[in-house]
């Protein structure tokens, strides 16, 4: 049998579906999609998805591992939960999208410089470090996400907003040198480390 035929045999043999079920948050729901498309029609960023959720579900069943995990689609999720509210089958679509994005990132398959991916990491790092989000540092981090010169441009563009926020006492420049944080930072670090270890231990190996 040629390689091509071998690939055909593998297709629809549910291997990727099994992987998603084992490793992706709420992944066991993927098989329950009935392809009605209500999720896609309900998504505020619907037109920006290369593959809308119901198509991603079908691709998972069809074994399109690379295409799914390297897609920018699930990074378009705004977490508005409209798809969850409307899904006639009760699939936790928002969570599955988050799970797919997170899993793709873990495997290093997520698109490079995907802005939401980058921003999410900055956000997470801030939490991991301080226990609470440092809005100013996140903002600055965001501006410089795509390099220094782009960051300057972004910062200038956002200057007006920053000034307005400060004027309305909703942003404190001193935040940058400290700011809100938890007291038990070492405890939080220990907790997160353990949680990450647990998760790494429970990933099932697939493919390769």
């Amino acid at each position, binding site marked *: 049998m040629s390689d091509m035929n071998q690939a055909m045999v593998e297709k629809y043999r549910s291997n990727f579906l099994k992987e998603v079920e084992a490793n992706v948050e709420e992944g066991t729901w993927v098989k329950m999609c009935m392809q009605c498309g209500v999720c896609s029609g309900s998504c505020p960023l619907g037109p920006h998805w290369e593959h809308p959720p119901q198509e991603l579900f079908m691709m998972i069943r069809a074994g399109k591992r690379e295409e799914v995990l390297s897609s920018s689609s699930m990074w378009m999720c705004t977490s508005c939960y409209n798809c969850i509210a409307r899904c006639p089958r009760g699939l936790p679509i928002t969570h599955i999208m988050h799970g797919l994005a*997170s899993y793709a990132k873990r495997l290093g398959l997520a698109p490079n410089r995907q802005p939401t991916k980058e921003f999410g990491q900055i956000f997470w790092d801030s939490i991991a470090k301080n226990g609470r989000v440092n809005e100013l540092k996140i903002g600055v981090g965001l501006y410089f996400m795509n390099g220094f010169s782009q960051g300057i441009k972004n910062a200038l563009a956002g200057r007006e907003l920053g000034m307005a926020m400060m004027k*309305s006492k909703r942003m404190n420049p001193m935040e940058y040198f400290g700011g809100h944080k938890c007291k038990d930072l070492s405890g939080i670090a220990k907790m997160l480390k353990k949680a990450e270890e647990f998760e790494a231990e429970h990933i099932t190996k697939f493919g390769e």
Partner: protein
Amino acid sequence: MAKKEFYSFYPGCSSQPKASADNFLRSSNAMCDALGIKLKEIDDWNCCGASIGYAGGGEVPRLSLSARNIALSQQQNGDADIVAPCAACWIATREAQERVEHNPKVSAGINAALAEIGLKVESGKMPKARHMVEVLVEDIGLDTIAKGVTKPLEGVKIAGYVGCQTNRPFGIAGESFENPLYLDHMIEACGAQAVDKYEKKVACCSGALMFSEPEKGHALVKEIIEAAYDGGADMIVTPCQLCQMNVESYQSNINKTYGTKFNIPVVYYTQLIAVAYGKSAQEAALDGQIIRAGKLEDIANK
């Protein structure tokens, strides 16, 4: 349901002094004072991970954050309801509880992590996680709130923008996902007029993607504001900190991109109630608006 003796308060990152929802925090304090709601803040609470945390942390680390808050609340405030004013904090806490209850593997992971700091969460034994709005609607009642109004917000027309996460996936009990009415009722309880059939009532403001995908975010907010103007609104009111920030603060950017002339105030329900209960403009944190709500300030200053 009657008002509880006190609530275990989980303000969340944005509702800290001089954070982006500083005006929420101040007006909320004024409102709670007026309504006799007593809050005991959870000591050393941490961020919930919000809706964007998934990109950095996996399921177990992210949910461990909320589990820590739940465990701390229980340790400090016993069975008292955890009350969050922020939709993201509220649903993250509830989701963590749901996973602990229904997903043994995730529950084991969370507890393994919590064990590192001597805490634990147990299925069926966690305090209830509630939204501040639930306290107003369910424990106090909008009728009761209406009765205590001393300065009705007469002549103000307001678009009640509920947004996403206060409404979905859990929502306020008894309300529909497509057309929840409590915010309109709250506006009316304060003596103002609610925009009827506000088309973008439960539309998405783009949430955290406003930061990573600003053009897409602006396009969504533009429609939310346009619909409010179409309904003849003087201002928009929202229960959500991120909605408030996204809808209020990008209006000048949107005006630049689309040639619009948006300049509509976006306030919190807590500010409406504070003013209607006779609190001063400063107590109601009206000075915290980027676009000042003149009509509210006039009433507060009367």
